[in-house]
């Protein structure tokens, strides 16, 4: 089945590479091809790889937007609005070319489901837009399961000297598969809230997060994120919900559960119009957190976010 035809404007190849030299050769030629065509080009890859591309481009690097993906895309949930759409939307005329490497060896087992969902959702976010996003995968260091997922989330795969249509392409199945149930932590501090307890829920979160080690900007961001999620529960999630906080592996984990169902897979990743008042709550959480995990079903929705101290 040729699935490329249904995404004729958007191109989203995965690049499987094995060596540093292969990485540099393929990415630098991809960037230079874009520059030769007059296309705006951005590169968002992990720091060491960014330096390889920068060195390979030489003086041409000045014409390219370069971002360390371990910073800009630490939380994979903010890559679509904060990196990809931010660049593509600022260049509305003609094709835009981006290298995005959101999955690297070292992504944790807690992060990976959100990374795979992000790669899948890129297809929905850019359908019909003249954008090319090349996603490198380190074939030598990533698990076979990750590479198999990449064949499902990318309509085409580039290996060595050829680009082929992926017979496995089916991005929705990856969104569904990693919509994993989130089991509550037994040691969490828990607070149930309704519309009258929004202030108290926020105060509870601040007190607990501070006790668990957050301070300064991270504590302030946690307060803001909890305010948005608890408000969403009251407005969209049957009027009430449950807030829980605990510490795990050096991070504070905050979770809000309610009885609503999130029907839009791109919720929190689709930038609202500049003049629109609502619709930024979940995106705010993606922007300030180190990781967001989400589970939604007919039984309810859980949003869990992680903040390092």
């Amino acid at each position, binding site marked *: 089945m040729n699935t490329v035809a249904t995404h004729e404007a958007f191109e989203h190849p995965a690049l499987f590479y094995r060596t540093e030299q292969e990485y540099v050769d393929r990415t630098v030629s991809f960037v230079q091809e874009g520059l030769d065509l007059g296309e705006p080009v951005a590169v968002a890859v992990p720091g060491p790889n960014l330096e390889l591309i920068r060195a390979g481009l030489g003086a041409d690097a000045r014409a390219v937007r370069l971002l360390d993906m371990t910073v800009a895309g630490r939380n994979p949930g903010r890559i679509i609005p904060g990196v990809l759409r931010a660049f593509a939307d600022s260049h509305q005329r003609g094709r835009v070319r981006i290298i995005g490497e959101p999955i690297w060896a070292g992504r944790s087992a807690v992060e990976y489901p959100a990374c795979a969902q992000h790669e899948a959702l890129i297809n929905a976010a850019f359908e019909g837009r003249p954008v090319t996003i090349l996603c490198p995968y380190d074939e030598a260091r990533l698990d076979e399961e990750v590479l198999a997922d990449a064949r499902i989330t990318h309509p085409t795969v580039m290996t060595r000297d050829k680009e082929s249509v992926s017979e496995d392409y089916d991005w929705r199945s990856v969104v569904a598969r990693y919509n994993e149930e989130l089991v509550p932590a037994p040691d969490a501090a828990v607070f149930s809230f309704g519309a009258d307890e*929004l202030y108290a829920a926020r105060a509870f979160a601040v007190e607990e997060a501070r006790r668990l080690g957050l301070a300064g900007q991270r504590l302030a*961001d946690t307060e*803001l994120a909890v305010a948005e999620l608890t408000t969403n529960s009251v407005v969209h999630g049957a009027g009430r919900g449950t807030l829980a906080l605990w510490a795990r592996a050096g991070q504070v984990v905050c979770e809000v559960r309610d009885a609503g169902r999130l029907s839009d897979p791109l919720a929190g990743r689709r930038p609202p119009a500049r003049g629109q*008042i609502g619709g930024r709550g979940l995106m705010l959480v993606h922007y300030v957190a180190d990781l967001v995990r989400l589970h939604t079903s007919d039984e309810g929705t859980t949003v869990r976010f992680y903040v390092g101290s």
Partner: protein
Amino acid sequence: MVDVSQGDDGLGPGRGAAVLEVGPLTGRPGIRARGEISEITRSPWEEALAGLARQHADVSYVELSEVAFVDVAGVAALAVTALGLSGGRVVVEHPPPQVPRVLSLFWPGLGRIEVAPR
């Protein structure tokens, strides 16, 4: 000041419930607010901003030194109001930290708003 508190449990602003008092500044164009700006107090905040926009000439002031918290939609209402002005600017005085934080995330470089920090 117009008291538009809702669900006040007698503990006063910033303690037991979401409360917002908002009214005009004296001696200069603009509004001042006290309490918190969130879902519960959204309506009076947006009405006050609409009033500010109607009377805006060159510079309007939004005095927030007694506001303890503003959520994302509250900051959005402020930004959208400023974007809709035909000219001039809005000076936001002494806002809580959520205001510059949310402006920097969603409206970086918005020249229509000048923030005078706490």
